[in-house]
């Protein structure tokens, strides 16, 4: 069994891709295809993580930041959409770069859902939080992100984008009803949650930004972590 694991996994993956494509093209049934596409989007991340020679210090650093993000979600479990995870992912990506942000976001979603319950939303959350980290890392050297106001605006925008990406997973289950009306209705019904998320991002970023960036930059310099990325 162990010897054949790579061919076995590749064959299984190809098989599922084929099934998803036929289901989507023949029967207009898109749920499976959407999951396959998400897996394809996250796949390069894990391949890169496996292939590059990563220092044990960097690996542990990523684990600590993901765990802090995951833990920070637990006290706010009672309040929907209010959590500091996005803010922590943005700050970590700001200091350690896009790739680290992507990994931290995806890991935080995966691990915190061990406590909140895995579901069909897990891959979507991994993707969304990963994208939060990735974009924050890409923009970290621009003047926009360097200013405090710019970073708060960035967090506010991502609060809404996050909710919009999460809405896709059930809009996609109604291919025949797809119209701007449905999209508008779905986005209107999630508006309050998205607003809560956006405002909580602004709040947490405004109180965390200064001190956390200082702490993390000190660690980066002291130990020479993730300097390339």
């Amino acid at each position, binding site marked *: *069994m*162990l010897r054949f*694991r790579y061919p076995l*996994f590749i064959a299984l993956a190809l098989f*599922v891709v084929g*099934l998803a494509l*036929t*289901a989507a093209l023949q*029967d207009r*049934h898109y*749920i*499976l295809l959407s*999951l396959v596409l998400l897996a394809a989007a996250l796949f390069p991340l*894990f391949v890169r*993580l*496996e292939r590059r020679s*990563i*220092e*044990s*210090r960097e*690996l*542990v*650093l*990523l*684990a*600590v930041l*993901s*765990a*802090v993000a*995951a*833990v920070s979600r*637990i006290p706010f479990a009672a309040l929907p959409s209010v959590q500091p995870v996005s803010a922590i992912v943005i700050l970590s990506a700001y200091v350690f770069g896009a790739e680290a942000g992507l*990994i931290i976001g995806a890991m935080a979603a*995966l*691990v915190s859902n*061990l*406590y909140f*319950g*895995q*579901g*069909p939303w897990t891959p979507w959350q991994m993707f969304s939080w990963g994208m939060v980290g990735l974009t924050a890392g890409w923009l970290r050297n621009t003047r926009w992100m360097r200013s405090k106001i710019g970073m708060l605006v960035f967090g506010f925008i991502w609060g809404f984008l996050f909710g919009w990406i999460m809405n896709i997973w*059930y809009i996609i*289950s*109604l291919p*025949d*009803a*797809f*119209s701007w*009306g*449905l999209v508008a*209705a*779905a986005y209107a*019904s999630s508006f309050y949650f998205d607003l809560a998320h956006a405002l909580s991002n602004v709040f947490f970023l405004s*109180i*965390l930004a200064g*001190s*956390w960036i200082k*702490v*993390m930059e000190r*660690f980066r310099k002291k130990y020479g972590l993730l300097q390339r990325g």
Partner: protein
Amino acid sequence: MSNGFRSVHPSVALLYYVGLLLFATLLFHPLFLLTELAAVLSLLLLQGQGRHLLRGLPFYLLMAGSVVLWNPLFSHRGSHILFYAFDQPITLEAILYGLMMMLVLLTIMFVFISYNFTMTTDKFMYLFGTVAPKSALLILMTIRFVPLFQRRLGQITLIQSSRGISVSSGKLRKRMSDGMTLLKVLLTWSLEEALQTADSMKARGYGIRKRSTYGIFKLDRRDIITLICLAGSGMLTLIFSMQGYGMVEIYPRLKTPVYTGGDAVMYGSFCMFLLIPVGLEIKEKWLWRSFERRDFPSVIPIKKGPHYMTSRSR
């Protein structure tokens, strides 16, 4: 307690849950979907997850129920117009499609509840740790840090409260900034300590060679039989599904489903796939019940009544 379906080899459990998800998303037929939902529900109840299910039920129903409402409001395909709402035709087809989609979503969510119970993290890691060792190590370390950090945060709170920093007293503004101080201490402490862990890992030779793995699970005879039965019945169902069986046509016009021999064979193998874990659970329950009642249906006879010493041992 680990028995019944929870005690099978991880690959068997993974095959079953992947199969359930595939069938839920591929077979668009009310009979198949209802059967799958019923099977997953009975598996959940047999696994003792009823309370867990009840707690999340309002959320699941809200999420899946909104689909029933929205599809007829926004989709006007279909030829059987029932009535008009807001000058828009509401068709029978759209309502039925919405109901079926609700079944699909509910099934997927219920499958995940059972998955969370059966596939614990160590089993998942056993399966994927060899394929992606670094990601597996990263996930495992993160999982391990979560309870550690919770405990640490408790210690920090206790110590800092002696110098008046506490989230439970004072004005809101002070509480917030105090909470952030606590989190900052947690971050600094954990990073400092984790980097020591990393250095210790390196000193012991992490990353020099390929990472070896240790597997605690063994495929025994029951697992192999279950695996073969699941794979066989699952493949048969998939083959029939690719032939076009097990589908109802709703759009553009509702057709009454016709049942042929092919559908019956497919349904049979589908039921077999679904019910193997349920059977394992029932067998386990039955064994326990027999054990508690002390009249074993097993080969070992148990004497009833008071035990007298036999002449030989006397």
